[in-house]
């Protein structure tokens, strides 16, 4: 992003489509399959127009068969193709788990390094659209806990395009998590093809008083909270890991070493969530001696996502929650 001309702004959804389209134009092994990705253009519109450009072989509609879709991607990948498959709502990935976790994740290791499985699973996740308990989950922790699978959760259109390109080019199974509420957010995105490396976190906003590590939809909410708290003289540093596995531990450690205080925010339920992993990484690392307050997690409540709008909102952290907890953590003992 070094050019001086003003970047055009496109939506996160457009950025995802652009990554797939541009990569498919230049690598004939890449193809997309999933439910309603072809004629319909994707349930959320991610592949709108792609069937017309690439044809039905490479933009492939499938029956409703999440296990077979994931398995087909696995089998095609070991034969040298580079499939992208879309699971319409992350909640449905439960049906694909056997193929993803017991086959795709393990085949390279089980077969002594003789195969690789270069697939990407793209999936809309998260709550806030009133879709209720079975269409609203963020299940990144399941895949972080499965050796052999990489996990990416971009929060901006720029990150989405660059990281999807990298995921497609990676020779391993990658879970690419797209939060539904981020689809319509806009941001500057270069027109040309570019890639962002995995295991590289980004400090989205620098600050001295508190580190907030935020995942996916919580990044814009944390930034909003930081803006509010800046008026009170509190400088909140917001770190976006972007790739959850492999994780950029160095950037996170450096940030907490600098501020001495850490708040982790994610939408998935707090118990067993990725925040526990982050907290342990920090507490067990070099930043420990610089901690001047306990590490805190602010995450989803341990409940299924409810339908009612107010209940749904109350189930996961909102901007005002982040403000309250961040303010307390940044000022305690100061």
């Amino acid at each position: 992003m070094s050019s001086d001309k003003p970047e055009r702004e496109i939506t996160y959804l457009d950025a995802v489509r652009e990554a797939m389209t541009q990569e498919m134009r230049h690598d004939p092994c890449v193809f997309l399959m999933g439910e309603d990705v072809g004629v319909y253009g994707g349930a959320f519109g991610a592949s709108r127009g792609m069937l017309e450009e690439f044809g039905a072989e490479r933009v492939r509609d499938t029956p409703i068969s999440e296990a077979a879709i994931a398995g087909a991607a696995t089998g095609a990948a070991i034969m040298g193709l580079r499939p992208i498959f879309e699971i319409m709502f992350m909640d449905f990935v439960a049906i694909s788990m056997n193929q993803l976790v017991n086959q795709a994740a393990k085949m390279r290791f089980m077969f002594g390094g003789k195969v690789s499985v270069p697939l990407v699973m793209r999936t809309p996740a998260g709550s806030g659209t009133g879709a209720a308990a079975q269409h609203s989950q963020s299940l990144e922790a399941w895949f972080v806990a499965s050796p052999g699978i990489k996990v990416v959760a971009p929060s901006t259109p720029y990150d989405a395009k660059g990281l999807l390109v990298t995921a497609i080019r990676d020779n391993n199974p990658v879970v690419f998590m797209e939060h539904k509420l981020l689809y319509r957010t806009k941001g500057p995105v270069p027109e040309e093809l570019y890639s962002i490396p995995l295991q590289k976190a980004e400090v989205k906003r620098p600050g001295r008083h508190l580190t907030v590590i935020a995942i996916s939809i919580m990044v814009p909410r944390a930034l909003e909270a930081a803006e509010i708290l800046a008026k009170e003289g509190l400088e909140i540093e917001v770190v976006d890991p972007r790739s959850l596995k492999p994780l950029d531990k160095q950037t996170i450690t450096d940030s907490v070493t600098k501020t001495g205080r850490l708040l982790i925010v994610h939408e998935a339920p707090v118990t067993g969530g990725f925040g526990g992993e982050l907290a342990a990484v920090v507490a067990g690392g070099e930043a420990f001696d610089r901690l001047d307050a306990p590490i805190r997690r602010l995450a989803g409540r341990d409940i299924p996502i409810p339908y009612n709008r107010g209940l749904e909102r109350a189930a996961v952290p909102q901007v005002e929650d982040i403000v309250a907890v961040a303010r307390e953590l940044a000022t305690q003992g100061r």
Partner: protein
Amino acid sequence: MATPIIMPKVDMVMEKGTFMEWLKKEGQAVQKGEAIYVMMTDKASIEVEAPASGILAGLSARPDDQIPVSQVVGYILQPGESLPEAARQTSPAAITAGMQANTELAEEVKSLVGNGDSALKKNGDKLVRATPLARNLAREMKLDLASIPGSGPRGRVYRRDVERYLHARPPEQVETMSEVQPAQVLGFTSSRQMPKLIAALPVARERGRVALKGPRVIIAQRLAYSVVTIPHILFTLQIDMTESVRLREKVSPGIEKRTGQRVSFTAIIAHSVAHLLGQHPVLNSSFLGEEIVYWEDVHLGIATNLDEYLVVPVIREAQRKNLEETVVELNRLVERAHSKKLQPSEMTGSTFTISNLGMMGIESFTAIINPPEAAILAVGKIQDAAVPVGKELAIRPMMAVTVAVDHRVVDEAQAAKFLAGLKDVLENPYLLI
């Protein structure tokens, strides 16, 4: 009659739809059944068809609008028809944002904020709760953690509590770094013994007598000790301050605006030295007889002249501070020095000292190392001088610096490299960014 175009209900639980985009424009003719706009429900996006043939008009919905089911978003007119009154108004777009403060939510926030475990450490029989940072600081300052009152929940000790404790301690309790009485080194049994044995007093009328007391005693002892026990060697360099002058001009307005503090050359030099010492750890060390301790932190002593005597307030962890933070801290300490508010803890524990007599007009001088440090930097005034630049003479603001080092710890090459590094950084200040 104009045919209204509404937001349709497309599934059982839908109450609102998100308007995505118009597929046709205001004034365009459409056929019944043709797709005219795209909406999105929580599950999928849907194309809405025209309910009649005619001309599109009064299109009020905008992308991202949340529209309740059955609300009108536009009209289809037959030739000759006009829009109803209601359509002339702007369509309501925003959802009612924000919810009432949810008591359950408040509870959750409170629960996150209230309790907390902190590291427990056994200290004799007493368990002490303290943050890792507080613990480290206490250890560094050789304090008993158990005697420090903590302000956190269940008596947790924060860094701030340790610092407060340090500031509040009466001066007598401050440890001196050296137990050995300097006078003893010189063979005197009492520090107050004047050197009558070495030289006779002149025969002259006395103007007055003042007993040595307070800081003067310590200064006298320290200086004598230092000169006698530490082999000093001295190195001088002239530094072209053109770029540093420029830097100061550039950053001063911003820093003054933000902090209300003026940027002094002492601050710039202090900041440069603090960041440079990381590459020259030998000059940031202490000789302990059997070993040399290299310090991780740079606690910079800044020699400050008051009317009666010299004090050396300390900028702690100077290597972690950026220029702005150094300016703020330096000015704060100097102000406290002048108003006699400096606490003992603010005057001890330095690992390197800078003395700047430029404002007194001194061109160059040598300073005495402040034990147990291994070096001291003496800075002279910045004055214009004619210096060769290439094959020509130019007028440049030049500054002389002299570093004195403990030759038991620092050898010539190391001192020379440090000075060369300092010259480099002050002549090219952007190297530090």
